C-alpha cells in the first residue's frame, strides 16, 4: 500500500490551515515538555511524514477508548491527524466487514511488514486461557495479536485493559485476561493507560513517534513520561487544600462546595500518574476532580482491585477493626492465662514451702 501524500498534504486537503497546524505542533511541543524552538522541528517532521499504516485491534474492551478518540464535538487537528494516519483496520470504525475486513488487515500487514504500528485496546485471554472467551472472525484474540505483532514496528496499548489487563483482569479474572505487554515479547510496547485515556495523549504519542521516528521516553510501566511523568496529585489545582489540611468530608458539605481536597472521599490522585490535571477532558473543559469527583486511579495497574473507590488511599481494604478486636481479645486471654498460671505456681510453691529454723540448720552443720 503506497501513500504518496505526506501528512502535511493530507492535512491541507482536509482544510487545516497552516496556522492551525502550527498551533497543534506548539501544543504537542509544550505537552511533551520540549522547548518552544522544537515547534518548527515537529512541524517540519510531521509535514514530511508519510502516513504510517496503523492496525487497530480491539479485544476484550468496551469501545470507550475509541469513543474517547472520536467523540469530540468539533473536528480538531488531533482528529485529522488520526484520520490521515492510515487506519487500515479498526473493527469499530472501518466500513468493511467480514472477510473483506480481515483481508484489509492481512494486506496492510503484508505491504508494510516491519513498519506498521499496532494499536490495541482491550485485554485478551492469555495463551493458557480458553480462547473462546473472545474471538473475531473465528480467530482467537491471542492468535490475531501474535500474527499481527510479527511485522509490527511497535505496539501501542491504548487504555488500561490493553496496558494492564483492566476490568477483564480484575479478580477473579474469569477469562484469564492478560495485558498486551505480557505477550509482546521483544516488540517495543508503549502503554497509554486510562479508562479511557485522554485523547490528546493518544495523538500526542503518535505525533511524537512520527516526529522523532523512535519511541518516547517511558517510565517503569512503559508509559510515555511526557504524559505520565507526574502524578495527578502533584498537578492538581486542589493540591493547596490538601497541604493546608482542608478536606471535603462528604459530597455536599461546605468543603465540597468550596472545592476543597477530595482525599478523604477516596481520591487516588497521589498514586495515579496521568495527564488529566494538566490537559483535562472535552477540549480542556474540565476533568473528574474539577467536576467534584475523586480520581479513581484508572491509569494504574489493578485499579479495580486496589480497595474501595470512595475509601481514602491510606485505608486498608480488609476488616482491620475486626482483626484488631479479635487479636486483642485473644491476647487478653493469653495474658490472663499466663498470669493465672504464674499465680498458681506461686501458690503451689507457697503450699510446699518448708520453713527452716536457724537452730535446725545449725544442728545439721
Amino acid at each position, binding site marked *: 500500500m503506497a501513500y504518496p501524500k505526506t501528512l502535511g498534504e493530507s492535512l491541507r486537503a482536509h482544510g487545516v490551515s497552516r496556522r492551525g497546524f502550527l498551533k497543534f505542533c506548539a501544543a504537542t511541543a509544550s505537552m511533551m515538555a520540549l522547548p518552544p524552538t522544537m515547534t518548527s522541528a515537529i512541524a517540519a517532521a510531521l509535514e514530511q511524514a508519510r502516513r504510517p499504516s496503523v492496525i487497530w485491534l480491539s479485544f476484550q474492551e468496551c469501545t470507550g477508548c475509541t469513543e474517547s478518540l472520536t467523540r469530540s464535538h468539533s473536528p480538531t487537528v488531533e482528529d485529522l491527524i488520526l484520520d490521515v494516519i492510515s487506519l487500515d483496520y479498526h473493527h469499530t470504525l472501518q466500513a468493511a466487514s467480514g472477510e473483506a475486513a480481515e483481508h484489509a488487515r492481512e494486506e496492510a500487514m503484508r505491504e508494510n511488514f516491519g513498519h506498521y504500528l499496532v494499536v490495541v485496546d482491550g485485554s485478551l485471554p492469555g495463551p493458557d486461557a480458553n480462547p473462546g472467551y473472545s474471538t473475531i472472525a473465528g480467530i482467537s484474540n491471542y492468535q490475531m495479536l501474535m500474527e499481527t505483532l510479527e511485522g509490527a514496528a511497535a505496539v501501542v496499548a491504548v487504555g488500561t485493559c490493553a496496558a494492564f489487563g483492566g476490568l477483564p483482569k480484575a479478580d477473579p479474572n474469569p477469562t484469564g485476561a492478560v495485558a498486551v505487554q505480557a505477550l509482546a515479547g521483544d516488540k517495543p510496547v508503549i502503554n497509554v493507560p486510562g479508562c479511557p485515556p485522554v485523547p490528546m495523549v493518544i495523538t500526542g504519542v503518535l505525533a511524537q513517534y512520527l516526529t522523532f521516528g523512535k519511541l518516547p521516553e517511558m*517510565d*517503569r*510501566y512503559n508509559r510515555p513520561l511526557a504524559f505520565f511523568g507526574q*502524578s495527578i496529585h*502533584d498537578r492538581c489545582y486542589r493540591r493547596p487544600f*490538601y*497541604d*493546608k*489540611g482542608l*478536606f471535603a468530608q462528604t459530597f455536599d458539605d461546605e468543603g465540597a462546595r468550596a472545592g476543597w481536597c477530595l*482525599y*478523604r472521599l477516596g481520591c487516588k490522585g*497521589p*498514586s495515579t*500518574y496521568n495527564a488529566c490535571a494538566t490537559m483535562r477532558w472535552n477540549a480542556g473543559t474540565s476533568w473528574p476532580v474539577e467536576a467534584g469527583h475523586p480520581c479513581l486511579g484508572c491509569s*494504574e*495497574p*489493578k485499579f479495580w*482491585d*486496589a*480497595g474501595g473507590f470512595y*475509601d*481514602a*488511599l*491510606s*485505608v*486498608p*481494604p*480488609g476488616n*482491620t*477493626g475486626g*482483626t*484488631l*478486636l*479479635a*487479636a*486483642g*481479645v*485473644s*491476647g*487478653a486471654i*493469653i*495474658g*490472663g492465662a*499466663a*498470669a*493465672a498460671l*504464674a*499465680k498458681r505456681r506461686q501458690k503451689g510453691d507457697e503450699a510446699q514451702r518448708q520453713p527452716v529454723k536457724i537452730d535446725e540448720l545449725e544442728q545439721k552443720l
Partner: protein
Amino acid sequence: MIDPMDFLLWTKGPMFDWAIAIFALGMMARLVEIFMLGRKPNYAEPRGSEWGPGFRTILTRSVADAGTFQRAPFNVVIGMIWHIGFFIALLLFIPHIELIYSVLGIRWPGLPNPAVDAVTAITILAMIGALIHRLRNPVMRHISTFEDYLVWTVTFLPLMTGYIAYHRLIDPYPLALGLHILAAEIFLIVLPFTKLTHIFTVFIARWYNGAIFGRKGVAS
C-alpha cells in the same frame, strides 16, 4: 520480580492484617499479664493518696530533672525532639488519621503537610544524631545491646520510608508507599516483644512510682 502494585496491595491487605493481629495479640497479652500479676498487697496504713501523685509523676518524670540534664544534655534534648517529632508524624499526618479512623472510628484534626514534612525531616536528623551519639560515646556503646540497634532501626525505617514516599524519591510510587507501609508493619510486629513496649508501659510505670511515693506520703 514482584509487581510494585501487587506489593502495595499485599502490604495494605494481608500483611497489614497480620501485623495488626500480632501487635494486638502481643500487646494485650503483655498488658493483661502485667495488670493481673499486680503488686504485692501493702498492709501498712496509707499516709496519702495514690492517684494524685501517680498522675503528677506521669507529667513530672516526662521532663528531665536538672541533674540529669546537666549530666546528659544531648540525650535529653535529642531524645525529646525525636520522640515528639515521631508522634507528630504518626498522629497528625492526614493520611495516618484516615487510617486510624477506618480502624478505630475516631479522628482528630491534622497538621498541614509541609509542617509534618518539616517535623519528619528534623526527627530523622535527630534519630541519626542519637545513633551517632550511641556509637561514639564509650559508655553508651558499652551498654548497648543488639536489641537497642534493632529498636532504633525499626523506629527509623517508617520515618525514612515515609519521607521517601512523600517526596516520591523511589520510582514507581506504589513501591515507595508499599515500603513505608511494610516498615510500619515491622515496627508493629516488633513492638510487643522488645523494649518498644515502653510506648504503653512507661506511663503505667510512672504512675506506679508516683503512687508508691504518694501512699508513703513523700514527694515523688
